[in-house]
């Protein structure tokens, strides 16, 4: 006699919700696919950004310790492992919503307070930046969960399942929802200012290994800075195209640096000058200011646009992943705080940092090994 579960499994099969990668060429346009949850490193970092983001800022309930955190991580890891593979979670009251994971990834991290539970790892809060106008409601939390997917049903179902499962262990402080423009040609998605966002990102495995993934006590983990950046689009709209490109230092059409080049990936030449002798990329422009002495990417940018439905404000949920935030991200942010023409239209209103756990192998859960808990 087939049970509801077996029928559901058949549905999963028929729907090809979890088509193995070998089957992908049969349906190149379909977003439906599975990104493995288990592995040396957590998914959702090096993963090409999916269309939708939900970022959850959560505090552990008072008096909770490593053992409580371990139980929460067990529940969350089990939910994530099942839901990302197109299976309902345990105690899932809406199993049908799990059939199509649509590249769902669930990525877990801990804030500075909880890194004290892990030996050998410290995480300092970001220094104060002069341009910040931070709001408490988007502030630091004990835990972060980054959920990303190409479908909102999959995403919101996973979000709900995880929130249900933290009852008694965690308290939700904030939810940041965002969207990303997926492109087919490898170009970066656009932000709400019209810019191609993420041109200077690590592009291959070597660059990710060098810039994103940590070593030592946090080997195969990474660190995340979340910056909620409000954009003043009303005044940005008043600028003509030339002024906007001048502010950024890139062409809006294809992201090419104003010093020349065929696309967003061309190296900006900060020394190229116009007929008067002024730099084609203005020294105060966003490109010039965010650029370090060394060319090339400094960390991984994983940006998602947001529109706050309650008040219509909009901006960017800027997520920087780096193996060392203080060494890679902070210097860039410091330079931008000192001077960046773009600052006139942008405003950091939220800020938090997290240590993103290393991945968990099959049969294990995220955080167990680092917390020193038994299997």
């Amino acid at each position, binding site marked *: 006699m087939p049970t509801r579960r077996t029928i559901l499994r058949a549905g999963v099969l028929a729907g090809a919700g979890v088509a193995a990668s070998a089957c992908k060429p049969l349906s190149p346009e379909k977003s439906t696919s599975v990104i493995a949850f288990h592995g040396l490193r957590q998914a959702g970092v*090096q*993963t*090409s950004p999916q269309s939708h983001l939900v970022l959850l800022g959560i505090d552990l309930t008072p008096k909770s310790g490593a053992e409580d955190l371990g139980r929460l991580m067990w529940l969350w890891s089990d939910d994530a492992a099942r839901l990302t593979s197109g299976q309902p979670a345990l105690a899932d009251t809406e199993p049908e919503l799990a059939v199509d994971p649509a590249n769902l990834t669930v990525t877990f991290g801990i804030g500075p307070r909880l890194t004290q539970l892990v030996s050998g790892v410290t995480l300092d809060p970001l220094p104060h930046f002069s341009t910040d106008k931070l709001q408490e409601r988007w502030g630091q939390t004990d835990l972060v969960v980054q959920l990303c997917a190409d479908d909102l049903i999959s995403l919101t179902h996973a979000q709900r399942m995880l929130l249900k499962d933290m009852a008694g262990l965690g308290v939700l402080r904030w939810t940041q929802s965002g969207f990303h423009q997926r492109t087919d040609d*490898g170009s970066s998605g656009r932000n709400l200012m019209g810019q191609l966002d993420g041109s200077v*990102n*690590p*592009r*291959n*495995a*070597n660059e*990710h290994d060098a810039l994103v993934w940590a070593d030592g006590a946090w080997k195969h983990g990474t660190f995340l800075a979340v910056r909620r950046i409000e954009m003043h689009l009303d*005044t940005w709209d*008043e*600028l*003509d195209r*030339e*002024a906007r490109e*001048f*502010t950024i230092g890139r062409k809006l059409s294809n992201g090419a640096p104003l010093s020349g080049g065929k696309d967003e990936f061309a190296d900006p030449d900060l020394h190229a000058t*116009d007929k*008067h*002798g*002024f730099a084609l990329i*203005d020294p*105060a422009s966003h490109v010039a200011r965010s650029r370090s002495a060394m060319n090339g990417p400094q960390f991984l940018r994983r940006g998602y646009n947001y529109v706050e439905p309650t008040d219509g404000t909009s901006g960017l949920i800027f997520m920087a992943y780096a193996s060392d935030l203080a060494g890679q991200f902070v210097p860039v942010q410091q330079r931008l705080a000192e*001077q960046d*023409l773009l600052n*006139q*239209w942008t405003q950091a209103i939220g800020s938090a940092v997290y240590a993103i756990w290393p991945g968990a192998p099959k049969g294990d859960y995220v955080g167990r090994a680092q917390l020193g808990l038994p299997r």
Partner: protein
Amino acid sequence: MKALSASAPRAIARLAACLLMIAVGVVASLPLPAQAHVLLLRSDPADGSVLKEAPTRAVFEFNQPLAPTAYVILTGPDGPLTTGPVKVQAKTLTLTLPKVTDGRYRLAYRVISASGHPLTNSISYVVGKIAPRTMKQPPRERSPDWIAATGVGAVVLLGIGAGWFVVRRKRQRQTGSPQ
């Protein structure tokens, strides 16, 4: 009829005045693209002026308040010259100028309006009784062979640089795309 004939020209004049006022009003209320941009209203020294003595400072006045970020480049007969720091106050840009010899000078400026629009341009002026032609002569006597050699060298270096760049880009692309 007399009254009418007497008042007709006055009525026409009134109508014309009304129409003119309306036209002026319409034109004034039209969004003028130029108004969004920052423009140089006047400068001291003025563009194209001939001065008996070298000016000690330059003042630029614009139609809009300026952002603090501004740059100038002063170029004289012998090339670029160092000026004093640029000061921005409201719609005005001020800087002190170095003591210079007679000759033609070009003062290029880049300002950004407070609303974010950049403006890059330059003014030129002549100090002393220098005929404009003298400016066209090369500032120093240089051997043509030396100039040619420098040119060829630069082209070769550029070529090597470009080649290396292309190869490097290609390799970077081939190393693999992010997963």
